[in-house]
């Protein structure tokens, strides 16, 4: 149309343009009507407005705007198309359709097939035959010339394949075709990349004298390089065939079930062809990643599949020595940690208890456990480790004095001689020994034996027939340095030296790092630990289809032959995918190196005609016209609002709320319409955030925010009620008399609640209360050792007065305390700091007055000087009374006491409260008051 590459889908609609003059007439006819207002001071106003006359018609530009809007709408309805597709073919004779159906065609496969379909249509209408050549398999078993319909059937039944096209073979096939005379015109549908042999192909096409047309796809292609699992993250590179504007890519790592577990994004900068990305998710998550793909890319090259070899191993460390954190260099694990950290993730045992440490590490799912100089293992632990080894674990042990002393251990690859061998000391003839060459059956084979390493001590293996098989490394004299053996599916590895530099300087050498690396690599890599140096054949498990999705393998795929030490390559017979079984598989990827992608250079195809592919050449203008019309509509709305005065700030201010909302809604609607229309064909997909498992259970730290008095729940309701009321009464009393304002009293269950929050536990003893179990008492013991105090109250002062009584409460108390480490006790001496902690007291009555309060015995002072208060360095962890404090403190909601004191004496209750205050203050402040009493003396000494 008019020489422009513009056609209309519905040209008849354009006749509506004749309506424009009518619209113009209508628009001129109806100016906006003014509002009529009564205004008494018009005389004053008139003095102003003589000059201003309001136009009765809308301004010309508004009319023009509206006319343009109408014209745009009509044009949009007519369905204009820019640059409509031209004919694909322009030759005659046989059509040789060369189509790239490798991995890189994934994104544009539909377009390529559509273009091929167009070409076949044209060939069919010209009654031409077709030779179909697919570049991944140019020599496939197919007739040299086909009818277009047959070629279309072949094409429709094939997707592109996750493998590299073979242009070299393609060139040979074309030569064959040319030689057989089936020539005419070549249409080459390229995926946009150079592949091996593309030059030959180009040379043939430009030199054959045939008409050649090239359609080049792959403009927005992106691919992934192989990934590396580094300590700080999983790294990879996004590759583009050609540099362009900066493009963002988002990458998703998925686990074996295809669920996203990791996400990251990367921007390929302007003018660059690649950009490196990094998954910084925690190692456990990274290890779950089974495939990484570029979001939105539909080609197998944008997917990298991972197998076991990419996983970082988690290694647990256990030491026989109690690690001294202040001297890390002396820790036997120091060099191991340093050696392992570049390539694996280290879990330290967080406890010195080997049993717990091993259990903890196994629960953390470590691949290998390293034990440095651990001698005897507990039986349970041995069994546990053997179980773990049978499932494929790896136990690496280092010798040391402890191991040398206990050679009878089940968890050793070889039997050891008692004691260790000392080479090259002052009392020895021998020189320190070096390391011998690594033998071929050793995993260390290929490493350079470190010349500088000197072994001075080692544990010796008992000579046996199979010792050689088990030996991975030897000293120069042939004695084993590293021995290993299978244990179930797992490995037992023993270094015959220890892990620091006392026995040898091996841990200081770089070889040590490599050795550990190779050993750790053995762990749980199920495939590589079968036969190491034979090629194996693996059945296809899942393969990538043409769009980069893992699918079950189609029938007829060949098993993958993996030669030792080679990386398998994706071919037509074995396209990219996973090969093997669920238990162990090898990932085959399209791209096996980070080499940059090379874009196809169409200039090298001399004389070739270029054909546009896809929708790129065929642009619908309608959305843009509609968007423009919507913009104009927006402008028109704003203009009308402005004319009506609704846009002035004053009117916005003065407008009623309803009106304002309505105006805002209208504006928002207009804007929204505009925006929607402005974004034709743009779809936003909301990606669900990756679930990171269930949240960590939170410890309830609430009691830590306020200091609470606490009592032990005995399980006997009456006692617990009195305890609660009593502590409430005491809490009130303390809050009103002292600066300490405790929170509401808390009943704690010593068996389960966290006790660390409470400085003082009130523990009433009832004859029927159950004796806590040992685990519970261990907690109580820990509580007391961490500085908590417990006030035991047998509440039986009065009954214990009976003659010959061994009160049941006392018996119970004795039972409870039996498992505790109780220091010697004494009744509170008169100079004890408890008597002065807040009030000055000489007795500690509760409901009963007669009983003593027992505390830890203070160290007797030798000098017997007249110190007014004595205190040990800490707070007595245990206080025992029989005076039933809680009953004396218990008050009801009207602050009336609940229990009469014995004898009935209000003073005694007051003293009971004061006792409570002193005990609480003592528990909180310790021996502070004992120091305070010296203040006069201190001041005097300071010369004040």
């Amino acid at each position, binding site marked *: 149309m008019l020489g422009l590459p513009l056609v209309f889908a519905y040209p008849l609609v354009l006749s509506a343009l004749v309506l424009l003059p009518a619209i113009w007439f209508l628009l001129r006819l109806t100016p906006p009507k003014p509002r009529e*207002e009564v205004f008494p001071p018009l005389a*004053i106003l008139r003095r102003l407005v003589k000059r201003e006359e309001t136009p009765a018609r809308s301004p010309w530009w508004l009319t023009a705007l509206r006319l343009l809007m109408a014209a745009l709408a009509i044009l949009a309805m007519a369905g204009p198309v820019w640059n409509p597709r031209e004919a694909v073919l322009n030759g005659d004779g046989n059509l040789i359709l060369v189509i790239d159906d490798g991995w890189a065609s994934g994104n544009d496969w539909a377009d390529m097939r559509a273009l091929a379909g167009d070409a076949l249509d044209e060939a069919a209408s010209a009654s031409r035959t077709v030779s179909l050549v697919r570049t991944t398999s140019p020599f496939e078993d197919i007739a040299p010339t086909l009818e277009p319909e047959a070629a279309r059937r072949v094409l429709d039944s094939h997707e592109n394949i996750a493998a590299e096209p073979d242009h070299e073979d393609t060139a040979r096939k074309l030569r064959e075709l040319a030689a057989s005379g089936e020539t005419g015109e070549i249409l080459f549908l390229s995926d946009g990349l150079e592949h091996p042999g593309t030059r030959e192909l180009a040379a043939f096409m430009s030199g054959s004298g045939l008409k050649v047309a090239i359609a080049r796809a792959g403009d927005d292609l992106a691919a992934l390089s192989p990934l590396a699992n580094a300590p700080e993250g999983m790294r990879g590179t996004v590759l583009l065939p050609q540099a362009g504007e900066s493009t963002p890519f988002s990458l998703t790592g998925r686990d074996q079930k295809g669920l996203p577990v990791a996400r990251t994004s990367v921007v390929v900068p302007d003018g660059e062809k690649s950009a490196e990305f990094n998954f910084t998710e925690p190692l456990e998550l990274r290890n779950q990643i089974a495939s990484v793909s570029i979001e939105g890319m539909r080609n197998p090259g944008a997917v990298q599949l991972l197998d076991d070899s990419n996983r970082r191993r988690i290694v647990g460390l256990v030491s026989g020595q109690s690690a001294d954190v202040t001297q890390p260099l002396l820790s036997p694990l120091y060099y191991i940690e340093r050696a392992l950290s570049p390539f694996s993730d280290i879990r330290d045992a967080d406890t010195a208890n080997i049993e717990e440490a091993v259990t903890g590490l196994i629960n953390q799912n470590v691949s290998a456990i390293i034990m440095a100089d651990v001698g005897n293992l507990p039986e349970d632990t041995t069994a546990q480790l053997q179980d773990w080894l049978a499932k494929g674990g790896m136990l690496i042990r280092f010798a040391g004095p402890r191991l040398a002393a206990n050679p009878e251990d089940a968890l050793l690859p070889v039997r050891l001689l008692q004691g260790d061998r000392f080479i090259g000391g002052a009392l020895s003839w021998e020189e320190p020994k070096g390391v011998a060459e690594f033998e071929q059956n050793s995993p260390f084979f290929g490493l350079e034996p470190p010349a500088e390493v000197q072994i001075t001590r080692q544990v010796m293996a008992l000579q046996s027939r199979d010792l050689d098989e088990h030996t991975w490394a030897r000293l120069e004299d042939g004695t084993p340095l590293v021995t290993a053996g299978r244990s179930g599916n797992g490995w037992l590895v023993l270094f015959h030296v220890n892990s620091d530099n006392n026995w040898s300087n091996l841990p200081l050498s770089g070889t040590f790092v490599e050795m550990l690396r190779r050993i750790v690599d053995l762990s749980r890599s199920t495939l590589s630990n079968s036969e190491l140096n034979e090629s194996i054949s693996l059945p296809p498990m899942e393969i990538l289809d043409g769009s980069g999705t893992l699918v079950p393998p189609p029938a007829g795929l060949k098993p993958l032959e993996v030669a030792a030490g080679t990386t398998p390559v994706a071919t037509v017979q074995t396209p990219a995918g996973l090969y093997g079984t669920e238990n162990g598989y090898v990932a085959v990827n399209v791209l096996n190196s980070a080499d940059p992608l090379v874009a196809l250079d169409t200039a090298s195809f001399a004389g070739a005609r270029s054909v546009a592919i896809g929708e790129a050449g065929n642009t619908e203008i309608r959305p843009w016209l509609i968007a423009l019309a919507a913009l104009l509509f927006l402008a028109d709305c704003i203009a009308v609002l402005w004319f009506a005065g609704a846009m002035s700030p004053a009117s916005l201010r003065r407008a009623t709320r309803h009106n304002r909302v309505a105006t805002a809604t209208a504006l928002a609607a207009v804007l929204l319409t505009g925006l929607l229309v402005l974004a034709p064909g743009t779809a936003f997909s909301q990606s669900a955030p990756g679930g990171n498992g269930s949240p960590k259970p939170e410890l309830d730290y609430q009691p830590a925010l306020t200091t609470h008095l606490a009592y032990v729940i005995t399980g006997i309701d009456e006692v617990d009620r009195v305890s609660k009321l009593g502590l409430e009464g005491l809490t009130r009393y303390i809050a009103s008399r002292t600066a300490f304002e405790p929170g509401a009293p808390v009943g704690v269950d010593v068996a389960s609640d966290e006790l660390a929050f409470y400085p003082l536990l009130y523990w009433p003893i009832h004859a029927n209360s159950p004796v806590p179990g040992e685990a519970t008492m261990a907690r109580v013991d820990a509580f007391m050792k961490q500085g908590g105090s417990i006030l035991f109250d047998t509440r039986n002062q009065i009954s214990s007065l009976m003659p010959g009584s061994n009160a049941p409460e006392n018996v119970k108390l004795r039972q409870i305390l039996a498992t505790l480490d109780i220091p010697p006790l004494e009744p509170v001496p008169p100079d004890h700091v408890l008597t002065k902690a807040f009030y000055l007291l000489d007795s500690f009555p509760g409901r009963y007055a007669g009983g003593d309060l027992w505390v830890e015995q203070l160290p007797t002072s030798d000098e017997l000087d007249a110190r007014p208060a004595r205190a040990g360095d800490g707070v007595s962890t245990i206080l025992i009374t029989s005076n039933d404090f809680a009953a004396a403190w218990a008050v009801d909601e009207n602050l009336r006491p609940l229990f009469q004191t014995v004898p009935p004496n209000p003073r005694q209750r007051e003293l009971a409260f004061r006792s409570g205050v002193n005990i609480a203050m003592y528990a909180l402040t310790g021996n502070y008051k004992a120091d305070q009493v010296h203040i006069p003396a201190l001041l005097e000494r300071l010369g004040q």
Partner: protein
Amino acid sequence: MKSPARTTIGEQTERDIGSGLLARSRARAALIPDLLVEAKRVANNVYAGWHGRRRRGVGENFWQFRPYRPGENMAAIDWRRSARDDHVYVRDREWQASHTVWLWVDESPSMLYQSRTAIVSKQSRALVLAFAMAELLSRSGERVGWLGIQPPIAHRHAAERLGSALMHAPPQTDFPDTISVRELSDVILISDFLEAADGLHDRLKQLANRQIRGHLVQMVDPAEDAFPYSGRVEFRDPETGTRMNAGSAQALRDDYRALFAAHTKSLSLLARRIGWSHTVHHTDHLASQALVALHMAMSHDPGFGTGGR
């Protein structure tokens, strides 16, 4: 008064007059203490009032003793008081007088204007003010009249009398005839004073020359002051029916407000020059505000009065 669906800012209301108005004005008046009309310049009153003026003058009740000044009437000396010490005292009496106050409310169409933000129309508010003043004045024994309708009367229920007289009279649209106003009376003129300033000024000056003290209460609708119009508006004058188009009314706002302020200012200046009081009252404010202002102006020597006293 307010129709629910109003699109315009201002509207013309019906003439508001009736017993409801009276009741409202009475309620307003109940808020005000007894009005004490300052009547300094009324020398020898004609009618004896009922209440003291809280100043010396002619009356019956003792007011104060003060030292005799040479030249005063010897008969005024209170010899009994003077005998008690060495000075000569004069016995002052409290001045008791009643006073004539004329009321007038402009009822021209422009006064019937009420905008959206106003509580009532200007006319309604003006009548309330007038009746409230009448109530106050009659309560304190003054004679109250309505220019052009009712000659002054001294009556406990003067407000009712004025109200009924007003109901039967035609609306007072023009400036009233002031022939019957005698000198030294007070005149309360309540209007929007929007007519041509020259004629108004001349009339007021004439009144002032006749030794009449006046109080101008200018009713202003908030819309007249703030000019909240915007966009294309056609303005219509309710008095003359003149129309005027404004293309974008908001553009006129600042200039108009300056002019309106100048108009008010000129009225205020005139009032000050002739010794009258001038109160501006917005109809979106409470009527009692204007009443208090008026009360202040009448009962005290107004601070704004400069000339003529």
